[in-house]
């Protein structure tokens, strides 16, 4: 089946010299600075770049849409012979939801919680008069089937909260496919999903785009994901194009240094250390939130001076384990032993010294720092609190710590709101270091950051470990991060430890079933990876 409006190979969309400005801090800034883009019918274009590179703005502009507070200042967006940049909203609305559709990042936030899925799936198709209600419903069920949703005939009768995140993302793809658009824009559709779910969603998205031969723009910051989806990849930075090339060529021979640096984090690999005496051990830990039990007889050993990565999907209990170690969630049974002594379960019963030796770094650096305190206060407080360092000596020590995390004294009087994401996470690391801890729990510290910033943070953490002999418990769901930093790996699933051992042992077969599934689901840079994986899993 093929769209009757355009033929494969025709130029469907062509953007020329596009400039978009956004309004903030009382002036206009360039977001997109002169970008050209050509998309043929039936082609998938991958847009990749860091946050703030202008990927989403460009993706939306391809539909002629600009977010509130943005304006198109120059250039043309020619879709099938019509310049969208010159049309009024009313005229553009005839294209939206009919010939061009959009799949948003957070499906859960994008659905109307009060309407059934199938009603939302078909709404724009029926409104545009493409099909009548019955045909649209039948077609939606067919789409659910192609997208591999369970029980395709009835799943549409459910409400958004009754299906999982991955399923909801696929329903949204069905919604976007329902009017059989010529152009589909995917805006980071799998970023919020677990790896094992991501594979399923990617596979369904790709099959549906191929089946209906739809042109698509796929926006992501994950190169391995885009490699599976796109025919052509365009790299953006600061609103400008860095380079564009067919996928295979881009992966095998990137021209620009910036493009190469985009996947450098995946090349990081820590030489594995051999096991030493353990500094922290969890024995038979059971824990629960209220009546819901989340940890079942968990045993974890953390050798001194090494990094133990805890991997697992959301809900696997990895963060709960961290809460037990810190004393925020007293365990029901079992013991936490640190440096030979048993820690009291509840935080209030632990001594200041015990608290000082275990520090924690959070996933969201934004919420982990008080927005009303300056960097000096944030880093200075643990110095004063644990070590009694005040006044000029404290200032000196804060500067030392700032230099240790590769920043400098200029940052002392800044508020967290005046820092970038990577800088914020660095300040959080400095705050943890200020207490002179021996053990640091890193809870998904890099998952909210861009790849290239991630690399900087991971390198910093490794250097600090070498210099200060720190021990890390590194919670993550990203296997390439594990590769980059871990000595040992603990795999968790549904509150239980599936496997624990040296990185090389865990990553080498034979695996328990769950580890095998998790490892095979991590996207690789190979553009054939998804195809191979699907054929392997079917067999």
């Amino acid at each position, binding site marked *: 089946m093929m769209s009757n409006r355009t033929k494969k190979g025709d130029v469907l969309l062509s953007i020329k010299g596009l400039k978009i400005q956004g309004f903030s801090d009382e002036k206009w800034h360039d977001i997109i600075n002169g970008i050209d883009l050509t998309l043929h019918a039936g082609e998938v274009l991958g847009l990749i770049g860091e946050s703030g590179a202008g990927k989403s703005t460009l993706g939306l502009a391809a539909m002629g849409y600009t977010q509130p507070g943005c304006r198109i200042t120059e250039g043309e967006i020619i879709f099938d012979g019509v310049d969208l940049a010159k049309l009024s909203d009313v005229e553009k609305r005839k294209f939206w939801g009919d010939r061009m559709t959009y799949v948003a990042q957070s499906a859960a936030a994008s659905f109307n919680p009060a309407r059934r899925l199938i009603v939302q799936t078909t709404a724009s198709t029926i409104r545009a008069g493409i099909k009548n209600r019955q045909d649209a419903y039948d077609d939606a069920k067919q789409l659910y089937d192609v997208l591999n949703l369970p029980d395709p005939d009835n799943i549409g009768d459910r409400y958004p909260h009754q299906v999982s995140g991955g399923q909801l993302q696929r329903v949204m793809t069905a919604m976007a496919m329902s009017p059989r658009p010529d152009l589909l824009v995917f805006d980071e559709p799998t970023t919020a999903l677990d790896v094992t779910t991501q594979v399923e969603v990617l596979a369904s998205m790709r099959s549906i785009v191929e089946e209906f031969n739809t042109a698509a723009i796929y926006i992501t910051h994950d190169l391995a994901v885009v490699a599976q989806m796109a025919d052509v990849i365009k790299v953006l930075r600061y609103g400008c194009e860095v380079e564009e090339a067919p996928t295979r060529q881009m992966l095998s021979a990137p021209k620009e240094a910036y493009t190469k640096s985009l996947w450098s984090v995946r090349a990081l690999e820590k030489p594995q250390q051999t096991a030493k005496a353990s500094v922290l051990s969890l024995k038979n830990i059971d824990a629960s939130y209220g009546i819901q039990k989340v940890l079942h007889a968990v045993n974890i050993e953390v050798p001194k001076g090494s990094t133990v990565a805890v991997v697992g999907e959301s809900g696997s209990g990895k963060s709960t384990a961290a809460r037990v170690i810190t004393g925020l969630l007293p365990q029901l049974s079992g013991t936490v032993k640190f440096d030979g002594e048993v820690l009291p379960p509840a*935080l209030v019963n632990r001594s200041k010294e015990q*608290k000082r030796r275990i520090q924690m770094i*959070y996933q969201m650096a934004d919420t982990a720092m008080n927005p*009303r305190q300056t960097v000096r206060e944030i880093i200075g407080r643990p110095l004063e*609190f644990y070590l009694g360092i005040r006044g000029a000596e404290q200032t000196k020590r804060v500067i030392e710590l700032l230099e240790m995390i590769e*920043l400098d004294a200029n940052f002392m009087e800044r508020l967290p709101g005046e820092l970038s994401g990577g800088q914020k996470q660095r300040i959080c690391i400095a705050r943890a270091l200020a207490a002179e801890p021996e053990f640091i729990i890193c809870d998904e510290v890099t998952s909210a950051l861009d790849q290239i910033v991630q690399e900087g943070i991971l390198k910093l953490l490794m250097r600090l470990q070498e210099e200060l002999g720190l021990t890390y418990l590194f919670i993550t769901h990203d296997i390439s991060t594990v590769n980059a930093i871990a000595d040992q790996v603990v795999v968790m699933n549904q509150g239980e430890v599936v496997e624990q051992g040296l990185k090389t042992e865990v990553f080498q077969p034979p695996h328990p079933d769950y580890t095998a599934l998790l490892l095979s689901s991590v996207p690789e840079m190979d553009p054939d990876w998804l195809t191979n994986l699907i054929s392997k899993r079917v067999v």
Partner: protein
Amino acid sequence: MKPEPNTYSALGEVAAVHERRSLWTRIVIDLRKAPFTARFGMVVILAYMLVAIFAPVLAPYGEAEVFPEPYAPWSSIYIFGTDQIGRDIFSRMIYGARNTVGIAVATTFLAFLIGGALGLAAAINRSWLDQVLSRSVDVLMAIPSLIFALVLLSIFGSTVTNLILIIAVLDSTRVFRLTRAVALNVVVMDYVEAARLRGEGLGWIMRREILPNIMPPLIAEFGLRFCFVFLTIAALSFLGVGIQPPTADWGSMVRDNASLIMFAQYDLKVGLTPLLPAAAIALLTVAINFVVDWFLHKTSGLHDE
């Protein structure tokens, strides 16, 4: 330092953020952008404060000085005439600013101290303490506060201290509710957990981690609460259990001279006399609300373009 292209450097990101302005420059910028209503409000509040502070200098006569001529008309000697026992109304209005406003400020501060501290403690603790405090507040709020204040003042006697304490306690229930509600949103943030993990005490978490982040709604509430306290005092004085004579107070001045309204048909100015203290109350209330509105608008982030 010039960042090298195509490589990541933390220092290179510096250029993207601006220097933080000093507190004083920020205040000046804010004031310059303030709308007319807010400026008007600030001028009025400032004027009231000056009058309250310099009352003995400004007033032509003493607060309780009695002249042999009761109900004197407006004249060059007694600007707004005299009251039923011959005290100069203009002088009493000036002293009234000091008494009524002073007591209202003290009461509001006390209400915020009690309600704010308990609200924060309840939000952080969340267990039995929260339950006990919240339910007691519910009980207090279930009783109409003016009637409750009347009863308590009749029992304990209408001294200034009692007046301040009773109104402060009754009004602190509203402050408690607000503080608890806004603090609950902040308590769940990671930085509060981080402070707890560090081993910080309740006092530190309340003062340093939570309070600065909930200040805007509290300050706005302070302005509104002040108006209500002010009106409650005036109402109680009007009813005769508030500020006691001979202390000058706007509420009781309205009551004492209320009968003069009947003479408006003979002399308009005499009829206006009881409305003067009432107007003074109204003007201050409006002025404060102008300033609070502006402040709320500025901090809420709701800017209609």
